[in-house]
């Protein structure tokens, strides 16, 4: 049951009355109508069927109407409850079918409200809501000295927000340069590694001094396959990246032996791979989706998306029953402001793709601050996560947090 956030300022009653009739007459249309017509001032009685048909105005001038809900044994009467109660008498003693008269109350739709104890986050002038919610806005660590690979559609290497940054880029898509002709890659890199002080607008990047490795493994049309993606992972590990962010997935439920081996071998090499849980849920329609490849590999960290009220996102995939198919952690993934190829410069998007680079950036901060790598870094992230009032198969250990 939700609490009423509207406080005391709203009108609570309508000025009309609810009349409760005895069980003896419930369902007896004629008896109910007779009882209602006997009330002083009631000039007409209509049934619920007339009400449903529409066009019925209970408060029409010159009328004193009652609407009878015969099967409920209830009626709503357009008379003030104080006046009506007085005329009916105490407990309806003089009019036996009437048991009680109550003021009709105003009901409100139950709105989506913050969970108890949760203050909703919002973008402000200085920071995105995601940086606020994860403590990245106040973290001392910057990711300096840590190499973060984002394997995606590439990057806008001319973006003004990244001028002067150390960026290594490589394309694993045949016939294409690392330049981002889609936008997705530039957005994800912005979240993971965007600057502490962008030339304009609020800050959106987590690990502002990490070294960026932008691997293009998806075409400008957004497609890719194992050959390009695994080549990108190999490149990142060979170059000593401590974290690999992959905001990509396929709606395949069973685990790939190759990705599982790759995740495990990466961890052994001191590299943590994080991947998007997937956007295949339609929660409002009762479909919670499932974590697909490659995030369903036990050795790859699966990232769910939450919104600024710390609720699970409509689209965010839930755990998949295969071993390793669980959601491991959650990140900010609804209405995420980040970089976008010039000239537009910035864009706000939603998806587990946006949650994933938050976790990747946070992993870089933790690695810098604690020296933890691989599986140890995984464990640090999970232990530090903020517990959410959400099922673990939706949000794993909770919302990723920056080191304090």
């Amino acid at each position: 049951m939700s609490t009423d956030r509207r406080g005391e300022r709203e009108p609570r009653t309508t000025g009309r009355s609810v009349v409760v009739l005895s069980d003896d007459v419930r369902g007896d249309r004629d008896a109910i109508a007779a009882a209602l017509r006997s009330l002083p001032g009631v000039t007409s009685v209509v049934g619920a069927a007339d009400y449903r048909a529409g066009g019925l105005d209970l408060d029409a001038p010159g009328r004193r109407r009652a609407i009878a809900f015969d099967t409920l044994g209830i009626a709503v009467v357009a008379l003030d409850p104080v006046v009506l109660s007085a005329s009916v008498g105490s407990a309806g003693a003089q009019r036996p079918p009437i048991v009680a008269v109550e003021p009709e109350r105003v009901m409100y739709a139950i709105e989506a409200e913050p969970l108890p104890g949760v203050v909703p986050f919002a973008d402000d002038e200085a920071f995105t809501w995601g940086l606020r919610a994860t403590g990245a806005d106040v973290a001392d660590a910057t990711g300096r000295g840590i190499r973060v690979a984002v394997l995606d559609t590439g990057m806008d290497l001319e973006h003004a927000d990244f001028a002067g940054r150390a960026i290594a880029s490589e394309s694993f898509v045949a016939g294409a340069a690392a330049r981002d002709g889609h936008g997705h890659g530039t957005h994800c890199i912005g979240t993971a590694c965007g600057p502490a002080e962008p030339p304009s607008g609020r800050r959106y990047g987590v690990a502002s001094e990490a070294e960026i490795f932008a691997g293009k493994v998806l075409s400008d049309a957004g497609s890719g396959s194992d050959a390009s993606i695994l080549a990108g992972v190999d490149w990142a590990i060979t170059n000593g990246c401590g974290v690999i962010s992959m905001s990509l997935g396929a709606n395949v439920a069973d685990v790939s032996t190759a990705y599982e081996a790759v995740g495990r071998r990466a961890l052994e090499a001191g590299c943590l791979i994080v991947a998007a849980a997937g956007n295949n849920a339609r929660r409002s329609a009762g479909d919670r989706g499932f974590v697909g490849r490659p995030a369903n590999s036990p050795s790859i960290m699966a990232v769910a998306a939450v919104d600024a009220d710390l609720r699970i996102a409509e689209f965010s995939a839930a755990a998949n029953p295969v071993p390793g198919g669980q959601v491991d952690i959650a990140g900010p993934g609804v209405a995420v402001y980040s970089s976008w190829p010039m000239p537009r410069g910035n864009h706000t998007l939603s998806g587990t793709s946006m949650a994933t680079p938050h976790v990747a950036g946070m992993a870089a901060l933790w690695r810098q601050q604690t020296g933890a790598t691989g599986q140890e870094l995984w464990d640090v992230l999970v232990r530090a996560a903020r517990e959410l009032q959400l099922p673990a198969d939706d949000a794993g250990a909770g919302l990723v947090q920056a080191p304090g």
Partner: protein
Amino acid sequence: MRRDVTVTVADSHAGDIDEVAERLRRAGMRVDGALGALGVITGSVDVARLAALGELPGVAAVEQQTGFQIAPPDADVQ
């Protein structure tokens, strides 16, 4: 008909990826990438010869490649 495949090299052969790749070539696979840091080999093979690859020494698994597709740039959910 050819299929794009991903071959996982067994842990026991982690240091011998070039050797395993050569074995795969001799068995009819076109090797596109031998990824030493991962112990994974990507390429393609005729479907008739696919099953035989899994029997080769040093091969832990042979899988058809997974295709990935993200949403177009103008989609709200990415």
